[in-house]
Structure formats: structure tokens, C-alpha cells
């Protein structure tokens, strides 16, 4: 069964700016991923910075690699958030691959 994470329910509700808040939201997301196969992350009605998205989503990509993306979908993203997601995820996929090669060799 899929789960839904409505980010605007959490403070500060409309603008998510810091890594500290990103870490808290990552905790909420990881708790859902522990109990559900797929999670829809809902960014409807809010704005976020690259730092927040990197801390919430980028860290998961860095840890688990591309496999985590098969379990996530993103709802209600405005153009800025979509663009930031592409930037963060492509960067962290590259970092993940680099770290994998470092540990392999």
C-alpha cells in the first residue's frame, strides 16, 4: 500500500528553507518508507530551497542510490521545486556512484 506525505501539514507549512527542517522532514519520509513500499511526497502549495531538498531527498539518494527513486513520486511541485529536484538528484546520483567506486576499489 502506498503512503502520502503532505509536507505543508508540517511547520513552517509554506516555505521550507533550512537543512535542519530538511532533516526533520527526511525523518518523516523514512518512517513512511519503513512501513510502505511507495511514498508520494506532496509539495503542493509550498516553496523550498535547494538546501532543504538536498537534505530531505538528496541524502536518501546519496545513501541508497537510484533504487530509492523507484519508491518515490512527487506531487504538486512548482517549476522551481521540479528544477531543484532534478539538480539535487542528478548531483547525488553522481556522488553515490563515485562513493560506490571508492569503496569498491
Amino acid at each position, binding site marked *: 500500500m502506498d503512503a502520502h506525505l503532505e509536507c505543508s501539514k508540517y511547520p513552517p507549512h509554506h516555505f521550507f528553507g533550512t*537543512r535542519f527542517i530538511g532533516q526533520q522532514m527526511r525523518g518523516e519520509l523514512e518512517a513512511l518508507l519503513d512501513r510502505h513500499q511507495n511514498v508520494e511526497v506532496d509539495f503542493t502549495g509550498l516553496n523550498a530551497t*535547494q538546501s532543504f531538498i538536498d537534505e530531505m531527498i538528496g541524502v536518501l539518494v546519496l545513501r541508497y542510490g537510484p533504487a530509492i527513486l523507484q519508491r518515490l513520486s512527487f506531487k504538486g511541485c512548482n517549476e522551481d521545486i521540479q528544477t531543484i529536484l532534478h539538480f539535487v538528484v542528478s548531483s547525488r546520483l553522481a556522488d553515490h556512484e563515485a562513493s560506490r567506486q571508492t569503496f569498491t576499489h
Partner: protein
Amino acid sequence: MAAQYYPTKDHIRLAVVDNGCGLLRSLRNHPRLADKTDIEAIKLALEPRVSGNRDVGLLDDSHNQGVGLSVSSELAIRAGGRVDIISGQGAVKKLRNALHSWTVPAWHGTAIEMTVLRKQLGGVRVSSLIRELPGYEQVSMLRFT
């Protein structure tokens, strides 16, 4: 941290100041910092993908991407503004596409000031700035609903 609006000129000024180790010490071992001076460290910090902890460790939550200062300074420039940074004995001003530098009495830490024109700020698209960053690419695996 401080912010002020100047209604006569329609300017917004933001300032962030710390009393930390300064940019030169943070970036001293960065491979792209050939000239170990405060001014060159400030100039390097303004470039995208540069950070004091970006190249330090892998799988560390605080391992950042080094784009915050470069994107926010570019945002200020496109909003008709300027950026002033003082760190150690160096000072750098970014105005339009030019950097101007000079030395100052030693400042223990880093001070950043950005001035933007309020009316122009709304016309700056963050998504455009992000797309222009080196290494930006679309990820086909991302699913949007």
C-alpha cells in the same frame, strides 16, 4: 543577520555576518585555490560547486553542494543589485558581471551583504538559475504526479 527595506530607492539589503574561521581557512585545501589569499578565497566561494565541506567526506549529511552563495549572489545581480563580501583581510564586490577587490583591516569571520531592487526581484526565476549550474541535468527516473 539583518534585513532592511529602503522605500525611497526601493532597495532591499540583507546582511549575514559570522565570527568564524573565514573563507580562506575553510577553503585553504581546496584544489582550485592556487593563491592562498583572502581575496582569492572569496572569489572562489562565489563560484558554483565550491564549498568548505563539499569535498571533505562522503555519506555525510552535512556534505553540501556548494551552490547557495553562488546562486543567491547571482540572484542579487539579476535583480539589479550587488554583493559585498568581507573575510579576513579581503573584500570583494560583485556588481553586474565584474568582481572588484581590495584589502581591509582584518575581520575575524565573514560578512556578506546583498542589495537587490525589490521590483526586479520578482522577475528573477530561480529555476533558470538552477538550470544554468554546471552539471545540471534532468533525471528521467524522477516521477511527478
